[in-house]
């Protein structure tokens, strides 16, 4: 079989489309980052801390509070502003790189403030949601495959 120029062009086009798909996967993946201001091992929670993700609005957290930020993509910047015992304000800015397969991660803010130069693996960890599974209603689990059921849909 003779392989012509068009064959290579087609292969290159397919590879380009696949690469585009991979790129979209990387930049479009949504992650939830939990911001945790609870006691972490021996490190006590901060009295008050303001966290901003990617320059967004500040999320204020008092002691023993947890909030979340929803981000898209892998690379982000987190800015943590806190007040120490002598009422001096400090800001820690760190770049974080969320592993691709992770849907939900947790940042232990007290540990990060205590060890601002520590590697991200120490304060940014995988988090498994402990949400209670609620049985769906019977109407939700019943599958309707009848064509005429969609007849009155809002077109």
């Amino acid at each position: 079989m003779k392989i012509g120029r068009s064959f290579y062009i087609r292969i290159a086009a397919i590879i380009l489309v696949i690469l585009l798909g991979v790129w979209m996967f990387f930049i479009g993946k949504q992650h939830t980052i939990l911001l945790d201001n609870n006691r972490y091992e021996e490190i006590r929670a901060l009295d008050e801390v303001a966290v901003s993700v990617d320059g967004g609005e500040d999320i204020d957290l008092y002691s023993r509070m947890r909030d979340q930020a929803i981000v898209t993509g892998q690379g982000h910047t987190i800015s943590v502003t806190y007040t120490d015992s002598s009422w001096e304000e400090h800001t820690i800015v760190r770049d974080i790189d969320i592993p691709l397969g992770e849907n939900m991660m947790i940042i232990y803010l007290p540990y990060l403030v205590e060890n601002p130069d520590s590697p991200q693996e120490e304060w940014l960890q995988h988090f498994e949601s402990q949400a209670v599974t609620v049985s769906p209603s019977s109407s939700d689990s019943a599958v309707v495959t009848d064509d005429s059921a969609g007849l009155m849909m809002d077109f």
Partner: protein
Amino acid sequence: MTRKLEMNNLKISPKELLINNLVPIMFICICVVGIPISGYSGSYLLNEILSRLGRNSFLVLSLLIPVMAGMGMNFGMTLGAMAGQIGLILVTDWNIVGIPAMVLAAIISTPISILLGWLCGTILNRAKGREMVTSYIIGFFMNGVYQLVVLYFMGSIIPIASSALVLPRGYGIRNTVNLEGIRKSLDNLIPFNIFGASVPVATFILVAVFCVVILWFRRTKLGQDMRAVGQDMEVARQAGIKVERTRLLSIILSTVFAGFGMIIYLQNIGTLNTYNSHSQIGMFSIAALLVGGASVDKANIRNVFIGIILFHLMFTIAPTVGRNLIGEAQLGEYFRVFVSYGVITFSLVLYEIRKKREAKKALEEAEA
């Protein structure tokens, strides 16, 4: 009456003009009568029409290519819609959001659409002259295959991690999939308002690009071949055109574009009705195109936009008109579905009458 209208060097009598445009004229009358009864404000109707134009244009435009190739209305566009939905289910499971999710869903849907389009086109090549009814039945058949994949394979053979998608039994996708991650991501990409109505600028740009692509495509070698095949298959074959291949390509292209159209449609709606969203899409898109003045053998971009505006204007006002006239909104709902089927039937009957009349006229001329 000897008065004739000169249009494109063709002499068309007013009666003929009326008959040729009976469907759009009928719809204009319905809308003119219905709008005051509905009581809707101009800005509300404008908002609805702009939203529906953005939502449906791509789907309806995807029907033009098979018409060009003489294959009539592609009821098989449902296959592309299914492929688009599979792409959307997967990106929702992977937690991909925004425009990247739409692009990725389109990339996933493309090979599925090509495969389904090839299958549909191959069958249609064996059913020449009966393409529409055949593609309609292929749609039903493929719906069964789609249900098998989505209801039994997803979650068991095809990994689906999200518990929000999978049925409680552990496999199969739920009735509705929340597309919150991509909802209006294209429509709201370039925010713009006019008279209080939100204009989906980015969607319109995409539709405009598609229109330009269709116009350009008509001038390419393949486009010319399709038109030649559409006019006369035997003559085209004598001219050295690979008729079957050309017809196959037209169906594949239409199916792929229908898949993209379905993704655009669902990003506007924001919810995927897993087992029903695709089933009616072919009928409503074809009805809209026919309302715009298209026929089985002739359709253009103008028909697409006129059709969507008129058809969806009727769709918007019908329930309220029904409620205000008879006190039952449900009657308006039935009316719009009845009209959708009715307009397809009416157009097909008109097309057959016209074809027979032309054949009779040609025979008379030949005898004379």
